[in-house]
């Protein structure tokens, strides 16, 4: 029987040399006459072990990593094809503690299947949600999603079912499903991983959304920084179309639904839903005032569902296993699972899907294993560049929308970036303002002007110019931006700045240069 060896095609694995490993493996297999085939899977999410290759054996998959192209010959010498022992052997993949302790609902197939094999997808429970959906009325589908408690995974946490119901109830000859794949937050890569590792789950989720709301056209707006995701999604849409999953008759039903992939153009603010809609329409990515809500007047003024990748990719399993199954995971009003992206200066970097409720300390210390540098953790930024910096003192905060809000933070898209004690929090606060200035769409004054003034004030503090007065000024500026900005870019930039000032006040009292010289 032909042996299957898995070498990931995920961009993180490629960045660490997976392509060279795959090439070396292919030529060695041929030279040695081994009856094996290489499957280019998504990533399992253990990125510190990438490129992590796996071989299928009668006892399950055996993992090896991190593998370099130069390791391939010795791996085959050691009997890689039959799961032989080697210094890089990690054992059975499913038994690796980082994977074993996860609850993989949305990422159930990621890293396991060939991303572009629809038969693989079907063999691993794919399309069951959509098959169920075509037998239900739109109102029933919406009721399922509402009951599951699913909230927008892009960061705002708005109940997905309510959004869908609004679009369903809004009359309109033409409606749209727009998938926000403009994943610009530093520390986040869950959208990228699912699009590269299990694209059909997103397609299935969008088709279900279409049937549920009466929309017949979907757009996936993917940022241009993700060329691999764009390529995989484009191919997957073609395959789905040919197989009748998309098209004039979705899975042979009376419903029509089609998807078009669109590429962003390097503007972070287009991750904001109304700016994204303008960008799709071919306009500058300027934020729109709400109301009207996109659900009433969205893309081309038509009723539009705009959801994050992970929100849509979570729908198939809700439709397949039922809302209660999903709802049973989690805590408080945060139901289901959340793919936590552990990044930055941390030992075990990667994607960890779990029910809501783990504490930040469990994530950073137990799962993440502390810093990569071996130095003490100083701060953890949760929720991207607009998320707050958390000190160790707040490590007991559970991963839950409301619990983070209560500590003046946010979960956002569930990315966490760990910093060791060499981090200068004044510098990080300045960067938050600088980033906002670079990426502001310019529509509202607090964001456009405030961010630039913020950089200047931070510089004055760093230079020791009237520090007391300037710290007050910075706090006041943050207040104006928070309450006066039109969207989350200007409105949330104060989170990293204020949290840095509150939790790390010493960094905002630099020793004046004159004294230091003495």
């Amino acid at each position, binding site marked *: 029987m032909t042996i299957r060896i898995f070498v990931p095609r995920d*961009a*993180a694995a*490629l*960045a*660490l040399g997976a392509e060279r490993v795959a090439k070396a493996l292919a030529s060695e297999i041929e030279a040695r006459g081994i009856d094996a085939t290489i499957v280019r899977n998504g990533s399992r999410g253990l*990125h*510190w072990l*990438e490129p992590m290759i796996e071989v299928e054996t009668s006892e399950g998959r055996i993992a090896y990593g991190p593998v370099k192209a130069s390791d391939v010959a010795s791996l085959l010498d050691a009997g890689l094809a039959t799961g032989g022992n080697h210094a890089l052997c990690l054992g059975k993949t499913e038994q690796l503690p980082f994977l074993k302790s996860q609850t993989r609902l949305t990422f159930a197939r990621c890293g396991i299947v060939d991303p572009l094999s629809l038969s693989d997808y079907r063999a691993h429970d794919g399309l069951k949600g959509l098959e169920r959906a075509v037998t239900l009325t739109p109102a029933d589908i919406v009721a399922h999603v509402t009951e599951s408690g699913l909230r927008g995974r892009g960061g705002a946490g708005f109940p997905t079912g309510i959004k869908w119901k609004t679009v369903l109830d809004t009359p309109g000859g033409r409606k749209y499903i727009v998938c926000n794949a403009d*994943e*610009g*937050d*530093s*520390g*986040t*890569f869950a*959208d*990228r991983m699912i699009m590269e590792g299990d694209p059909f789950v997103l397609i299935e989720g969008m088709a279900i959304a279409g049937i549920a709301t009466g929309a017949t*056209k979907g757009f996936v707006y993917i940022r*241009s*920084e*993700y060329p*691999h995701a764009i390529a995989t999604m484009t191919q997957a849409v073609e395959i789905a179309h040919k197989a009748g999953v998309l098209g004039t008759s979705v899975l042979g039903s009376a419903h029509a639904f089609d998807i*078009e992939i*669109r*590429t962003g*153009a*390097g*503007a*972070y603010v287009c991750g904001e839903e109304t700016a994204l809609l303008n*960008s*799709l*329409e*071919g*306009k*500058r*990515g*300027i934020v729109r005032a709400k109301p009207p809500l996109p659900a009433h007047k969205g893309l*081309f003024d038509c009723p539009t569902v705009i959801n994050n990748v992970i929100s849509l990719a979570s729908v198939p399993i809700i439709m397949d296993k039922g809302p209660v199954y999903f709802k049973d995971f989690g805590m408080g009003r945060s139901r289901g699972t959340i793919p936590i*992206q*552990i*990044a*930055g*200066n941390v030992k075990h*970097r*990667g*994607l960890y899907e779990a029910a809501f409720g783990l504490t930040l300390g469990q994530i950073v210390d137990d799962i993440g294993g502390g810093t*990569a540098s071996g130095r003490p953790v100083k701060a953890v*930024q949760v929720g991207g*560049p607009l998320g707050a910096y958390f000190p160790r003192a707040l490590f007991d905060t559970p991963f839950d929308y409301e619990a983070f809000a209560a500590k003046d933070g946010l979960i956002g898209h569930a*990315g966490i*970036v*760990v*910093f060791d004690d060499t*981090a200068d929090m004044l510098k*990080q606060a300045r*960067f938050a303002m600088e*980033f906002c200035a*670079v*990426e502001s*769409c310019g529509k509202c004054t607090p964001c456009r002007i405030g961010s630039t003034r913020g950089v200047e004030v931070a510089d004055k503090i760093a230079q020791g110019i009237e520090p007391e007065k300037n710290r007050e000024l910075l706090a006041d500026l943050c207040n104006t931006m928070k309450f006066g900005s039109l969207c989350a870019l200007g409105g949330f930039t104060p989170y990293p700045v204020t949290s840095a000032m509150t939790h790390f006040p010493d960094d905002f009292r630099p020793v004046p240069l004159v004294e230091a010289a003495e």
Partner: protein
Amino acid sequence: MNLHVSSRDIGERTLDIVSGMKSLEGPLLPILHEIQAEFGYVPQEALPIIARELNLSRAEVHGVVTFYHDYRDHPAGRHVLKLCRAEACQSMGGDQLAERVKTLLGIDFHQTTLDGAVTLEPVYCLGLCSAAPAAMLDGEVHGRLDADAVDGLVAEVRA
């Protein structure tokens, strides 16, 4: 990609691209991407043609082109090196690596070396935050960079 094209060629090719894509819903961004793929930048000469064909004002097209970081108004170097400047890469020493690259190339961000070999650009997140610090060279991704690795990238673009 041909960098030596006359204004007339630009006009004809732009018209071809616009004609082929204007039936898309919201065609402007896909058209601009295609034009940049064709010429390596978005030539000024292309703007009035796009405006006319899409029934937009030239100011509207100009406004869109200049809003997005991706669109260039002049050709880039033979190679484009994008260094991630966002927080996850900062936490793993990305700032120091950026300084090293700038010194090695003798240019700052948004600049091209005098020999036209490489354009250096900042990028705010490549989604490789678990493999920080990260970079993209001509569309190829590189992660877990250290001083040796960036020296290698610089040598590659200099060759």
